[in-house]
């Protein structure tokens, strides 16, 4: 099934779940309503014509000031017709139902999105930080993220534009890097 057939097939079942589609892009995508996501995904998984049994990736993309997009990359191991789902969330309160019940592999992916982007997945059994430390402050992949000066006494932050790449003993001597 190509993209159009998938969309047509889905519209038969869930006409109200699909907000829109974009076929002009390299990977055409479907924009799904947040409330209908789980139902739609169950259809995607269970319908023998669709058979999307492989959740490849969950990623969150931050589009300040208003939205955060959650992108689901799906694939079928048997039928080989990849699909992209998108859900748009308000940036202030990014909440979305969890897909752990549909694809258990969503577990760590959702934790990662929570960890780095601050998305709250409702119904996730164990929504804790996974890659960052448990007491880390902020969500690093947001575009407006401010790097902390230090973490438990260890200086951290991006190197560009700062003098971090100077050994501490030099700074005492008043030596700093000058960037062109």
């Amino acid at each position, binding site marked *: 099934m190509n993209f159009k057939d998938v969309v047509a097939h889905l519209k038969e079942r869930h006409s109200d779940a699909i907000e829109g589609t974009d076929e002009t*892009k*390299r*990977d055409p995508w479907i924009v799904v309503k947040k409330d209908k996501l789980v139902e739609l995904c169950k259809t995607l998984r269970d319908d023998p014509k669709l058979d999307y*049994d*492989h*959740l*490849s*990736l969950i*990623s969150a*993309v*931050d589009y300040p000031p208003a939205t955060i997009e959650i*992108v689901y*990359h799906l694939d079928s*191991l048997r039928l*080989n017709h*990849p699909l*992209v789902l998108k859900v748009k969330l308000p940036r202030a309160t990014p909440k979305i139902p969890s897909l752990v019940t549909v*694809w*258990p*592999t969503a*577990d*760590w992916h959702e934790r990662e999105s929570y960890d*780095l982007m601050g998305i709250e997945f409702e119904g996730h059994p164990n929504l804790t*930080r*996974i*890659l*960052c*430390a448990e007491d880390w402050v902020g969500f*690093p*992949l947001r575009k407006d993220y401010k790097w902390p000066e230090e973490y438990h006494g260890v200086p951290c932050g*991006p190197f*560009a534009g700062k003098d971090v790449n100077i050994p501490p003993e030099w700074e005492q001597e008043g030596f700093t890097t000058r960037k062109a």
Partner: protein
Amino acid sequence: MAIPQELHRDVRTEEFLLNMGPQHPSTHGVLRVVVRTDGELVLEATPHVGYLHRCFEKCAENTTWKQVVPYTDRMDYLAAMCNNITYTLAVEKLMGWEKLIPRKTTIVRTLLFELQRIASHLMSIGTYGLDVGAITPFLHCFRERERLLEIFEEVSGQRLNYSYITPGGFQYPWPDAINRKIKGFCEYFEERITEYNDLLSYNGIFIERTKSIGVLSPQQARAYGCTGPMLRGSGIARDLRWDQPYLLYDELKKEGVFRVRYQGDKTPDPRDQMVDWSLGELGDCWSRYMVRAAELEQSRRIVLACLAKLDKLTDSEKEAGAGNIIKEADRAYTAPKGEEAYFKSENPRGELGYYVVSDGKPKAYRVKARAPSFNNLQVLTEISRGAMVADLIAIIGSIDIVLGEVDR
């Protein structure tokens, strides 16, 4: 392996909490597994990751498209070439350069992809032997991997983090003379595969240690998004090289150079069976191991086929694919605005995907990597329940994680 109920009735036992890692010889890096044990039996093993997190995705947002390539090396550092190629293909898909890439470049990339797969599987097989206590196969595998690293070193100048493949071609021109050496390696390697099988794969103790351990049913493998040898070990014939061909694999598939599906018929050459056996049936540690061992032979054949194709190229084709289609001065190229692409390939560890989003600037707006080890490791809790502590090591080894990729 259920715990006998009588034991609990008669003797009062206590659970034992064991913290395995992040410094442990067999967790393949800095994985930490909190194990709840009853004597030698594992009741629950919970993996904790993140000790090697260095925010690859944030770094990628602050560098140009080309500058991300060295960062991808550090993801799966045992298969850096595959990471480079996959990222490069993702960027090329984003830019719409697929048609511009010369044929020679594609052939060489396929060749390098498979050579890297051999190198990575050698590491995997060797360290798996080490995990179950056999030290010699480890060094034998490293001996052959050393030859491969020499080849990579002469091609790219580095032994581990090559960053050789960049969007548009290569960082340096492909040295044609190296073809001869690669061919020599392939011939030399053929006998070695037999040796690994004699020494490790079919060793009775090794089989006893790994069979029926960490059994991953096909249903579980699908649900947990396991890919690569994990999935094929459970009997699901899924290989992106076969199912959604990229690079040169479409051609190779049609030519019958490699087969993924189990044919079932007996072929006179036993090595042909090896190629077919890249599909396990049981989903236990041994199946997963054997998928990798069989892929050594499979990859070797693909490399030889690629070399034959390289020899057949005309001179003009050879010249066209020597370097990079992008001039160095234009290295800060931009992608179309609002465009995004997801490209996935069959890494040695499974399905590696890069999701790249552009906002029309020379820097990536968002790069997200789908790391196979990250997904495969999730299932550890499920498949290690009821195993013994020694089995837990075998299971972790058979998942074949690279923490650089899990933690990114």
